């Protein structure tokens, strides 16, 4: 059984249907990526999964339970944690306080070792632990947003364009870290505009176009698919 199961998901903003009844699954331990052009409905899908927009009964099931009507904070407590588009760090809180907020829902005593692990993954954050998050560079804020999400020990980590706005090297580094996080046992659903890197790292992938899933399958297979190469990897067909 899949950890995350999406059936006929629709997202509407007023009269606009941004997501038009998609199916998507993420199995435990998998790393799945969702790619597509701007405005395809990727962020809307993640918002629906994490509870920021309402969904119909049965559309989003996580860990065997229906998420309809469950508020975002309960979904996070259930282990589904999203890093939103634009990172959403608490700009006026220090790096340490941001990480503490990631661990807000946890009562166990292992918060300290987990923080040490985050600092190990992102040494830059350790150097800046007392700075307010607003003073960090874009790449550092992305590290903080991911580190903060890890602090909650998610079962499924959903990331919305984590490489957006980063220089190519920083973007590559972030994606590598996400792959390492997945290898350490965290299920990952990755939304990326950087289709080539995302497909190279993920197990499976979905391609989204105007609110619909148009292609899906093994990431490697999609990387070789001429339709994907033409539309998302900037290559001529054939």
């Amino acid at each position, binding site marked *: 059984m899949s950890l995350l199961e999406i059936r006929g998901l629709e997202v509407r903003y007023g009269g606009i249907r941004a997501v038009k009844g998609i199916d998507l699954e993420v199995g435990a331990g998998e790393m799945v990526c969702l790619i597509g052009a701007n405005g395809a409905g990727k962020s809307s899908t993640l918002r629906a999964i994490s509870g920021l927009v309402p969904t119909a009964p049965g559309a989003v099931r996580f860990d065997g339970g229906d998420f309809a009507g469950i508020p975002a904070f309960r979904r996070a407590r259930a282990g589904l944690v999203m890093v939103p588009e634009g990172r959403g760090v608490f700009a006026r809180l220090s790096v340490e306080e941001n990480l503490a907020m990631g661990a*807000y829902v946890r009562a166990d005593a292992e918060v300290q070792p987990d923080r040490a692990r985050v600092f190990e993954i992102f040494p830059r954050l350790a150097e800046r632990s007392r700075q307010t998050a607003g003073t960090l560079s874009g790449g550092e804020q992305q590290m903080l947003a991911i580190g903060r999400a890890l602090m909650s020990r998610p079962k499924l980590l959903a990331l919305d364009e984590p490489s957006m706005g980063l220089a190519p090297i920083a973007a590559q580094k972030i994606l590598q870290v996400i792959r390492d996080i997945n290898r350490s046992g965290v299920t990952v659903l990755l939304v990326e505009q950087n289709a080539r890197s995302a497909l190279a790292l993920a197990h499976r992938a979905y391609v989204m176009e105007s609110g619909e899933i148009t292609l899906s399958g093994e990431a490697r297979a999609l990387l070789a698919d001429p339709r994907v190469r033409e539309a998302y990897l900037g290559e001529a067909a054939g």
Partner: protein
Amino acid sequence: MDIFIQQVINGLTLGAVYAMVALGYTMVYGIIQLINFAHGEVVMIGAMVAFSVIGALAPSGLPPLAIVLVAAGCAIPVCMLVGYAMERLAYRPLRGAPRLAPLITAIGVSIILQHLAMMIWSRNPLAFPQIIKVESYHFAGATITSVQIAILAISLAMMAGLAALVYRTRLGTAMRATAHNPQVAGLMGIDANRIIALTFVIGAALAAVAGVMVASYYGIAHYAMGSQLGLKAFCAAVLGGIGNIPGAMLGGVLLGVVEALGAGYIGDLTGNVFGSNYQDVFAFIVLIAVLVLRPSGLLGERVGDRA
């Protein structure tokens, strides 16, 4: 010089009360961008409950200090309940509504609470029982009373406690996180509604203590006392930078001192055309000056800085 020192002492006392009330405005504004016009009424209810408790216990022969403590001990939970109830019943259902809706509701809540208080405690000013004998101490040509010392000490302790809660605890960090971005706080598993309710309850507790203090200071309690006091505390919050906790503390104290000095010198400065009964205009002069010269307040950040 004597009058200067005296008015500074009086102003600090009053300012401490303003600061305690201003914190309630600023914390609620910081987290849901609502000016809770009913907050002054919570102060009034604190004073009224204390009035009733002191009146009931005064003949009992209990030590006066114990009676006052019991009175505050009753006023605080009653006000916390009122604060919780107004958030739960009046403001939460309007979350996500256009900003004008909760604002008008706040005015409605304020009117309802005032009239309830009028029905319970009468429409007349009530002489607040002065059961503790007031001691006066003289120094440098000025006088400070034991009530003033108590007000200053209690406010200082409560504000230090609040600052420790907000800036040193996990819960306080969650409050600041929610104020900054409630949606992302939700993604971290923080129940924003619970944090918002808690903010109202904490503000109400401070208001309760302020109510007891201000009623003991002036020796009077009245069902409408909350509206003017609340309005001035709101001015103090704007002066410090609405939404900013240290700003509310600073704004309250400054406003109290400005008001007291203004009242002390206005006669001399205007050739006695205006007297100290004009004291109340200073808060609003300060409010207008702030809005014109520095709308973000003394410690507030630039408008637009808030995500």
